[in-house]
């Protein structure tokens, strides 16, 4: 039980760092698109985001089976089905965001920082929106039995 709780806390901490890094990434890429590039940050944030994504993904995978049995099957499915659906949506969206995080890392290193492509703009924006959706969803699901 202790390791599961520790995993959940670390998962949340890594998710917070991921949210921050992808939000900053989207902002610096849009700023570069408007003619104010910051080459150092445009390469740093994608790398940080990838590291945080892998940490969130690994920790989430480790605690997912426990959630599926002890939380969803034993409580959510009966009392708050909407939260179970929202959680599954979040998990699957996280999978779809993975290739975009990888693409952001590759593109940020392959492209001229002063001229980010529409592909990089799209990746940074989609990942930021998706991660924010997942962070809020995770908070809502975790709050079902707290407040």
């Amino acid at each position, binding site marked *: 039980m202790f390791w599961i709780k520790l995993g959940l806390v670390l998962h949340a901490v890594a998710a917070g760092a991921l949210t921050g890094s992808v939000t900053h990434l989207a902002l610096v890429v849009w700023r570069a698109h408007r003619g104010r590039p910051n080459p150092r940050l445009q390469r740093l944030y994608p790398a940080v985001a990838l590291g945080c994504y892998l940490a969130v993904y690994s920790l989430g995978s480790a605690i997912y089976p426990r959630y599926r*049995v002890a939380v969803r099957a034993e409580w959510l499915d009966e009392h708050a089905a909407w939260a179970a*659906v929202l959680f599954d949506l979040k998990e699957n969206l996280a*999978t*779809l965001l993975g*290739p975009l995080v*990888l*693409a952001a890392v590759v593109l940020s290193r392959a*492209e001229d920082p002063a001229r980010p*492509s529409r592909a990089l703009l799209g990746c940074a924006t989609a990942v930021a929106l998706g991660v924010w959706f997942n962070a809020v969803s995770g908070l809502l699901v975790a709050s079902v039995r707290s407040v």
Partner: protein
Amino acid sequence: MSARGRFATGVGTLAAATVYLFTTTTRAGVLYYLPTRAEWTWSPPTGVIAMDWFARSHATLAVAAAATWAAWRWAPAEPKTCARWAGRLWPMSWLMLAWSAGYTALWLCARP
């Protein structure tokens, strides 16, 4: 370099979204994890909690990484050819990602 990057990531994203959508819609070749028994199986018994997310998710991410690497490695040598292909691949990738997300949302909301 830029065109090569857009080409490689376009291939990787499209391949990953295709694998995700295929495994979600058909369940073909999906390995299930049984959390109550701590076992993996191709055909889960009825009445037992079975998770298909691990196989689908790991396959999607592995294909994204492998396809991006392969496309970077064997990208067309001519930058203009790369750019032309990247321009075709990325719209298809976005379409496939949107289709995957939309299908997943409808599938989960319709689940009994």
